[in-house]
Structure formats: C-alpha cells, structure tokens
C-alpha cells in the first residue's frame, strides 16, 4: 500500500512548504512547528514503512520498483521523438516517475531521519529568530526537493530535485538576507551549483542521445547489456559531464568554494543541507549511474583522483581555520572527497556506506557546534572559546562521540566506513590506486588532528571567553540536546551495520546494496577480469593480512592526530600560537587563506577583482561585451545613421546647387527670358483677350470657309 503511494513522501513536505508560502505570515510558531516538523516526521514514518514493504517486494533481488505518475516532458504518446546517435529514433519524454531500490531506500531513510532530527533541533535553535515560518517553509521545500531527487526514476526528475535543492540552499544560505555576506554567499552557492547543473544536463543529454532514454532502468539495462565497449568515448564523455554536475553539487575541487561560504546560513541549515543531505546528492547520482561509470574507466580514474585531491586539500585548509563552522565545512568537503575516492576506485558500496555514517556524525558535529554557538550567544570563533566541557556537558559528550567517529577510532562508525574506503583504494585494480591510498591516509591523519583541535579549543582548553559571554553560557534546551543524543547513538551504531568480513562481520550493508551495483554487470567475460568484476565479488577471495595491517595503520593515524592536537591545544590559553604558524609561517598563511583559491577565482573566473586594470573572467567578458555592444555595434548603427546623414547633406547640397541651380532654375530663367516679349502681350484687359479670341475665331473660320 505504501509502495504504491511512494510519490506521497515528497508531497508531505511540499504540502508544508505551500502552506507556509500562503499562510505562513499569519501562523504562530506552534502551528508552524506542527505543520512543518509534522510533515517531515510523517514523511520519515511513511518512508520506513515503504522501505520495509519494498524489502518484501524485492525480497533481496534488488529489483527496482517503479511508479510513473504522468509524462512530464514530451508529448507522452511518443510522436515527439528525436534521432539518436545511431540514427534510430527514440521518443523524447521524461516522466514524473518514482523509483525505489536499495540505493534510494538507504538515502530515503537517512535523509528523512536526519531531516526529522534537524527539524526538531531547529525549532529550538530558531526560536527567537525572525522569519520563523519562512525558515521552516524553505526547509520543507528543501526536503521535498531532496526526496524528489532521491526517488526520481529518470535523470530529468532527478534534475528537478537537483535544482530544487540548489534553490533551497540559496534561499536558506541567504536567510539572513539583510547581511550582505549572506546574500553574496547564497548567490555564489547557487551560481556554482548552476555550473555543475549545466554539466549534469549535458551529461544527461549525451546519455539520452546515445541510449535513447532518460530512465535509469533503461540506461542501466542497456549499459549492462554488453553492447558498449569499455571506454566507449560517448559514455566516458557522459560520465565526465555527470561528474562535473556531482562536483558542483557535492563541492569537489573545482566547485567546492561555495560550501565554506554557505556557513553564513543558520547552523541547522548547514547541518541538514551542507552536511547530511544535499552534498550527498552528487554521490547518489554517481552511484545511481554506476553502470555508465563502470564502462568509463577514465571517468572512474578522474573521480578517484578528484576525490582524493579534494580530501587532502580541504583537510589541509581545515587545519588552521578558527571559525568552528568553517572547520566543519572543510571537513565535510574532505569527507566528500573520501566518498568520491571510493566511488572512483569502484567501491560504490563503501562510498555509500561512508555517506551513510558521515551523515550522522557530521550532522551531529554541526548541531553540536550550533548548540555551542547558541550557548556562546552567537560567538563562532574558537579563539574566544574554551573550557566548555563542564558548562555544556551533553553537547560536549555528543560532540566527543562524533569527533571519535569522524577520526575513525575503532568502535565508532567513522572507522568502519573510512577504513573500508582506504582498504578498497589500496586493493582495487591491483594496486593502481595505491598512490591515492597514501593521500587518503594523510587526510585521515589531518582529519583526526583538526577534529581534536576543535574539541580541545572549544571544550578542554582553558577558557578564553570574554566576561559577559561567560555569564551567558548555558546548556541548550531539551529540543536541541535530544536530537544530539540520538545522532550520537546513530553515529556509533551506524558503523556496525557493515561489520567487515575481516573482523568476522557479514557486511549486511554491502550485501543489501549489492544488486544495485554489481549483479547484472556480466560484461564481456572474454575481456578478462576488468575492474567491472572487482567491484562485485571482491570480498570473498582475500581477507588476507594486508587488510588488518591497514586497519591498524589507520587507527595509528587517528591516535597520532589526537596526540598532536592534545599536545598543542590542551593548554591553549588566550593568545595561544598555532603550531603551524610557529613552525612554517608561509604554510600557515597559505592554508589560512584557503590557498588563495577564492581570490584566484575572483581574479580569473568571476572577474570581481581586476588584474591590474583589466578585468578578467565572466564580469570582464561582460564588461568587454557591453563595451563592444555599446561602442561597436551601437556605434556601427549610429555611424550608419551618421553616414546616411552625411550622404543626405551631400545630396541636399547637390540638389540645391547643381540640379536646382542648373537643371531647374536654369530653364526657368531661360523661359522667363524667352517669355518676356510674350508677356508684353498680356495687359490684363478682358477685351483684349476677347479680341484675341475673335482673331483666333477668324483664323479658324477663314481656314474652313476657304478650304
């Protein structure tokens, strides 16, 4: 029953958003809570029941359940068709359809789950903020977009969610619109996302053009059908384009700049959107189109490399940030880097698992930092915090759990998912990605360091708070702490879902996801064991010693990171010095300024800053073209006008002097000369004229009479 009405899941929050849009202004806070939070809670319950019913429906085959409402784009009955690359025609339509399979059911669960918790959390957090109904309206709209994205059965429906999510992040980041920085950040976020979306659309179009349809099912069937060669150029191009979309959305290297600025928005927003749900959309999309990616090894390599690079790069910046939310933002970027690294090396399941665990502890971290800021009445800079351990105990304990999880300490979720990824990077493709393992390992070390740095600076180090801040410090209300505790439990428990074989577990999570990624990948067996197979049945053969060694190494890295952080920040009193600043000031300056990437973009891409006197980038092009338009084309038109005027003056001159002078007046004067004698003849006397008439008559008569 639930499965058939799967489309209701996104509609619940949509319904909430619509009510807020029309009646929000007039509702009190309680009703707003009831409507919006209620909508998400209902959506979550509905989602759980749907997933349960789905497991019965698919009983393990992973066969996707599809429910198509109506044809959204295209004329539906197939007349509006287009010519595919191989000349055959295919009907152009993208239907408003919903699909549920293991992959989307996982996403469904943790999105609605985390979403619900954050909604509850934000009732407390936003209690005394203005525009309460507007905030929840946007949140619900976001949930609607995210759920559409997850449940979409074709690329276009996915794109609807994709853009919707981008819009909501724009609205939410720009929630405090009277703050200029917030609106610029919002703009930046939306435009960068749009760049990604452009890539995504082109990718989708290539697929449609090549495979004739937008639906995931059709594409996967064809991709896995074995018609296409590995490394098929078109598929590679499509995969790359899709990956650009993913980068845009999930803030990977070239397009990550918007995420750190997105911290301008309220903290629950950052928690929900920029930690748990939206940023994972890119991963979901890549995972969803794994069949295509698998056929494009080059694309897989780029994904892996970009993932790794983003991870290490973001982590490095994270080391020196002082704003608590900036640190977490960069940690999210680096964790996303990990996920893409996993996808890149073909370990889709591992990547997804890391998304799953990361959602919990990163949301927890953000909410925790939110309650810290709430406690510190708006203070976000870690340098004026410290010694909050006893003042806000629940927040402290929950954040400690999250930090342990993210650092990858043993029993916590982070260990299992990160370790799995590192192991997969090491083991896949016979060691081709080993170099990336080192990068990953370094990032793990840095992650542990900056997370514990955060913990020490906020909780354990001696208090550097200003006096009045110290007085106001108070533990957040129940509505905020309860979600924190729940999330803490999840971030512990989530990891156990996929207890690795090597440690005697049965990796339920992977088994659950297996049908989505591998099963039908019976690709050209005669081509030899390609990466294609690796992703599928890897864990059976070798749980040899290297895996244990790697586990130990990653634990060691976490421990070392923790130690270093403790060493340099445990006693960081007011005016403490950053160790890196002390040891390598240029490196510190570089890292602190985020590798001057933003400035670089401003110079090169957006053109907000002038290079010397010339403005480059889009704005530069804009100025150039508007100058060109005003001066050259308009100039040309005006010149044409000027030329015609010039010709006109010449022709008038010509008319006046030559034609008029000579041609017309000449004969006129001539005529006057000639006519002078004749004129004498005219006296104006009537009788004279009569006489002339009579003379004429005479002549006439004479002629006739004497003819």
């Amino acid at each position: 029953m639930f499965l058939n009405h799967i489309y209701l899941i996104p509609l619940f929050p949509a319904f909430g958003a619509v009510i807020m849009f029309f009646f929000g202004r007039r509702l009190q806070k309680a009703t707003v809570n009831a409507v919006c939070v209620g909508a998400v809670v209902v959506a979550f319950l509905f989602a759980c029941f749907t997933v349960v019913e789905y497991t019965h429906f698919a009983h393990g085959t992973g066969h996707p359940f599809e429910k198509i409402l109506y044809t959204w784009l295209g004329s539906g009955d197939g007349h509006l068709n287009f010519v595919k690359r191989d000349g055959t025609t295919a009907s152009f339509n993208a239907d408003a359809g919903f699909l549920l399979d293991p992959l989307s059911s996982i996403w469904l669960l943790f999105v609605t789950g985390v979403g619900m918790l954050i909604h509850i959390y934000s009732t407390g957090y936003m209690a005394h903020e203005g525009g309460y109904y507007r905030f929840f309206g946007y949140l619900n709209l976001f949930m609607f977009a995210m759920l559409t994205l997850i449940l979409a059965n074709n690329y276009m429906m996915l794109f609807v969610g994709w853009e919707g999510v981008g819009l909501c992040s724009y609205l939410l980041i720009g929630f405090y619109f009277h703050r200029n920085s917030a609106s610029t950040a919002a703009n930046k976020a939306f435009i960068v996302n749009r760049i990604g979306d452009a890539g995504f659309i082109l990718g989708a179009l290539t697929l449609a053009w090549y495979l004739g349809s937008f639906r995931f099912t059709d594409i996967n069937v064809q991709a896995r059908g074995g018609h296409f060669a590995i490394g098929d150029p078109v598929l590679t191009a499509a995969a790359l384009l899709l990956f650009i979309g993913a980068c845009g959305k999930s803030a990977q290297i070239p397009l990550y700049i918007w995420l750190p600025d997105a911290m301008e928005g309220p903290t629950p927003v950052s928690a929900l959107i920029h930690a748990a749900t939206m940023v994972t959309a890119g991963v979901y999309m890549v995972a969803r189109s794994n069949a295509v990616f698998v056929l494009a090894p080059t694309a897989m390599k780029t994904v892996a490399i970009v993932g790794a690079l983003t991870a290490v790069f973001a982590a490095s910046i994270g080391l020196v940030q002082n704003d608590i939310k900036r640190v977490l933002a960069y940690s999210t970027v680096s964790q996303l880097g990990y996920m893409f690294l996993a996808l890149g090396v073909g370990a889709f399941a591992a990547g997804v698992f890391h998304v799953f665990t990361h959602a919990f502890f990163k949301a927890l971290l953000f909410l925790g930092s939110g309650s810290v800021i709430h406690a510190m009445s708006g203070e976000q800079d870690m340098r004026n915090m410290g010694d909050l351990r006893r003042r806000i105990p629940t927040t402290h304990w929950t954040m400690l759990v999250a930090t342990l999880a993210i650092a990858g300490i043993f029993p916590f979720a982070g260990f299992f998912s990160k370790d799995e990824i590192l192991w997969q990077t090491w083991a896949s493709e016979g060691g081709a990605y080993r170099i990336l393992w080192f990068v990953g390992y370094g990032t793990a070390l840095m992650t542990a360091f900056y997370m514990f740095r955060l913990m020490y600076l906020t909780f354990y180090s001696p208090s550097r708070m200003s006096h009045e801040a110290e007085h106001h410090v108070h533990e957040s209300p129940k509505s905020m702490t309860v979600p924190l505790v729940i999330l803490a439990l999840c971030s512990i428990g989530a990891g156990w879902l996929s207890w690795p074989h090597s440690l005697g577990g049965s990796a339920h999570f992977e088994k659950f996801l297996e049908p989505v990624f591998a099963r039908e990948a019976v690709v050209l067996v005669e081509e030899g064991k390609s990466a294609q197979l690796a992703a599928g049945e890897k864990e059976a053969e070798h749980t040899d010693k290297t895996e244990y060694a790697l586990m130990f190494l990653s634990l060691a890295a976490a421990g070392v990171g923790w130690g270093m952080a403790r060493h340099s920040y445990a006693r960081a009193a007011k005016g403490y010095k950053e160790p890196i600043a002390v040891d390598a000031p240029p490196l510190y300056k570089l890292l602190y300024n985020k590798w001057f990437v933003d400035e670089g973009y401003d110079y090169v891409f957006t053109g907000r800053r002038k290079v010397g006197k010339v403005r480059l980038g889009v704005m530069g092009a804009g100025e150039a073209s508007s100058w060109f338009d005003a001066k050259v084309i308009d100039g040309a038109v005006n010149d044409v006008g000027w030329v015609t005027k010039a010709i006109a003056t010449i022709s008038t001159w010509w008319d006046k002097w030559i034609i008029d002078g000579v041609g017309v007046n000449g004969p006129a004067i001539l005529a006057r000369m000639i006519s002078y004698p004749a004129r004498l003849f005219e006296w104006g006397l009537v009788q004279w004229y009569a006489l002339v008439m009579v003379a004429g008559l005479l002549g006439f008569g004479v002629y006739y009479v004497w003819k």
Partner: protein
Amino acid sequence: MQSHILSIILFTPLVGALALLFVPKENKNAIRWIANLFAFGGFLISLPLVPMFWAQRFEPGFKFLEGTPNNWIPSIGAGYNLGIDGISFLLIMLTTLLGWISILSSWTAIENRVKEYYVWFLVLQTGMLGVFMALDFFLFFVFWEAMLVPMYLLIGIWGGPRKLYAAIKFFLYTLLGSVLMLLGILYLYFHHHTVSNPQVFTFSIPELYKTAPLIPFNIAIWLFVAFFIGFAIKVPMFPFHTWLPDAHVEAPTAGSVILAGVLLKMGTYGFVRFSLPFFPSVVSHPRVQNWVIVLSLIGIIYGALVSLMQKDMKKLVAYSSVSHLGFCTLGIFALNSAGLTGSVLQQINHGISTGALFLIVGILYERRHTREIAEYGGISNVMPIYATITMIMFLSSMGLPLLNGFVGEFTILQGAFTANWKWAAWAAPGVVLAAAYLLWLYQRVFFGTVTNAKNEKLHDLTPREILTFVPLIIMALWIGLYPKPFFQILEQPVNQIVQNIHDKSNANAAVNAQVAPVPGPTAAAEIGSDEVGSNLVVSKPGLTAARLKASN
C-alpha cells in the same frame, strides 16, 4: 461553414479602439475602464478557441480557416485569409493574455494623452493578432507593418527621456528588415506565378509552400538571407539587436511588456512559418545552419554577459531577452522536432517570464521613477509580496525545473544536442549566466538593508498589480508542472515542418550536390549529414561501428 471566430478575435481590439474614439478625452476613468473591458473581452473571446483547438490538435494543416485565397484584392491575388495551427494558436493566446495584462498594468502608469494611448494599444493588439493569423503573405505584411506604427508611437510619445532616438531607431531598423522581407515575398510571389500550372498570382501561404522549395539553391540562398535579416532584426539576433535595449529602456512599462512579450516572437514565428518551410534545402544546408546557430549561440552568451554588467534594470532585462531568444533561434535551427517544440514553448515562456519581469521593473519605476539598480537596495524588507513574486519570476526566467523556463530550455538543449552536441555545449553556459545576472540583480535590489532613504516609504503591491501577475504565475506553474498539453498542441505542426524539411532537402540534396560546389564531406550520401549529426546514418550500430567519436 467557415468559422469566424478568428476574425472576431482579431477585430475586437479594433472595435474597442473605435469605441474609445467616442469617449470624451477628459474623463480618463471611462477610457481606462472601456479599454480594459475590451482588452479583457478580447482575451475572453480567445478562450473558447482553446477547447475548440484542443479537439482538433492532431489534424494536419491549418485550422479555423477563414476567407478564400484572393477575395480581398483579387487582381493581385491578395486574400483576407486567416488560419492558425498549433504554433500560432499558442502565440495568439499569449498575445491576448499579455495584451490584457499590459493594458491593466498601465492603469496608473499613463497620465497624459490617455485616450490616444489606449487607442494605439488596441490597434497594436489587432496588428499583432493579425500577424499570427494571416495565411496570406500580403495580409501578413500589412499587419507586420501596421503593428510597427502603434509601437513607434507608444515609445515615441509615452517613453522615457531618449524616447525619440529609441523610437526612430526601432522603427527604421525593423522597417529595413521588413523591406528586405518584402523583396523576398515579391520574388516568391512571381516565382509562384511562373511555376504554378494554372498560372495564377496569389499570396496565399499554403500555395507558396508548394512552390517555394522548388527555387534553385543559389537563388533560394539569397531569398533566405533577405527573410533572415528581416526576421533576425525582429527576433533580435546577435548583430541586429542594438535597437532592443534602447526601445525597451525608453518604452513605457506596458509597451515594453508587449514589445518583449509578443513583438519579439514575430521574428521567431517568421522563421518557423516562413523561412523553414520555404527554403528547406537552404536551411538544412550545413554552412547556413552553422552560421545561424553560431549567431544564436553568440546571442545567448553575449546577451547574458552584457546584461550581467548593465546598470539599468530594464536594459538588463532587455539583454536577457536577447539571450533567451538566442535559445529560441538555436532551437529553431536545430531542425528537429524537439528543437522546434522547445523553441516555440520557450517563446511562450519568454513571453510570460519577461513580460512579468518588465511589469516588475515597471512597478518599481512607477514608484521611484528611476531604473538605476544602485538606487535600490533592501526592497524585500519594504515590499515582501513584491519580492516573492519577483523571486518566482526570476526563477522562471532562469529556467528552474518545475517552472516554465526549464521546460522550454531543456527541450531546446535536447534538440540542439541531438543536432550537434557542440551547440548544446556552448548553449549550456547561457543557463548559468542567466542565473548569475538575475540573482546578482536580485541581491543588489532586494537583499541587504534599506540604504536609500527614499525606499523606506515604498508601498507594497496594490491588488490590481497583483492581478496582473496572477495569470502569469499560474501559466508559469502550469507549463512547469504539466507541459504535456503544450507538447501535444505543438506536435503536429512541428513534425510537419521537420518532415517537410527532410523530404525537400533530401529531394533536392542530390540536385544541390551538382549545382552548388559545396565541399560537403563525401563519406555519407546525405550532404552535410555528419555535420548536422541529427540524421547521421551509421552503417551498423553497436560495438565495432567506426569509432567515430561522437564529438567530431
């Protein structure tokens, strides 16, 4: 029995104009009420057309035919001959809707010479409707020119400071175009005479459809150029667009709504109705098609870039329409059903969203009498409803899914992609830039605190102003959420045009091969097929096909 609904729709505004003549100049209210009454009446009368058309949306050819080919001036074969198909039906509905809205919106905007204003507006309305309905080239040209004069006056009299310069520029520019078009028409007219077996002179378009493609290639190319310039100026396409920003900046609000909403569609309508069916071989010729596509791509990027840097809101929106219409022309010259459908749909969307944008700018202009962006800031604190409506309209113009902009743009991209993926690749940044300049505008005008003292006291939207936006928002949402009916309406005419282009271009493709020493690739029989990509015939699908990279 010929249904006369088209004539009724066509002449209701004119009747209104006449009725207005009798109203004394002084009592402005009566004039306004009557003008609105007729404009709304014109819209209501066009409503029954919807179900009637819906019933016969799949039948081929023109519907609601009216009048015989040469019953107007038999001596030269000009006939009062009306008829519409899917494309013109949508554009007519757009015209009547926007006509009514713009008249409603100019309630308080126009204070001096109110009577002439409304009379000219209603005449303009008839002119526009006539263009879309005319099935006779002569009638078409008459309406085409007739529509120029009122627009010139609207800009010239009720415009802003540099109104005369703008009005004259607009008028001369379009006139130049229409003169060339006239030459084209005449050539077709005489060619038809020589070719048609009962040697008859006629202007009726269905007749000309039959004989126009027979024109040999090297002449047809020049004809196409003539028509192209005529329509390109109107669209406006890249090099000919400089009149648009001036015309828009100086035109009164309602004038620019109509100018952007409908007048620009004349150009694209001209392409679809005349250039494509008349010169299939020329249009599908790779070199020509490339040129036009390049121009429209430039239009998209260039338009977006220039609008990014504009100081004046209206100029910004004007350049945005250059960019949007660049999309439309891209869609048209992709020469496949998706491209064409997307292009017509995008025209409707552009009409709705840009119409709304101009109304938005108009509302601010009405309150503060300035369009400089720097003058504004933090408006959303003062006028929340206005801010939300603007946000919706900006999103629709940007092409956010679930709103009308996306549907049009995506189908065009789809069409362009299947035609030649490089085109779509170049068009995609247009979408991004659209987001950029719109959001930047939104931020500078709406976000932030109220800096300029004058902005504090601005009152929010009056019910009348909201009423002007309601239908546009409804249409935007409808096309965004459920565009299927629109696709079905456009299906038949578009397929017909595309099919016609394929048959004709293949038919005389062989002919052209000998005639025009075009260095087309020799591989495939079709001329310029791989270039076009859309009708590429690869011998065998699947693995071992020539590893022709898709992106050549």
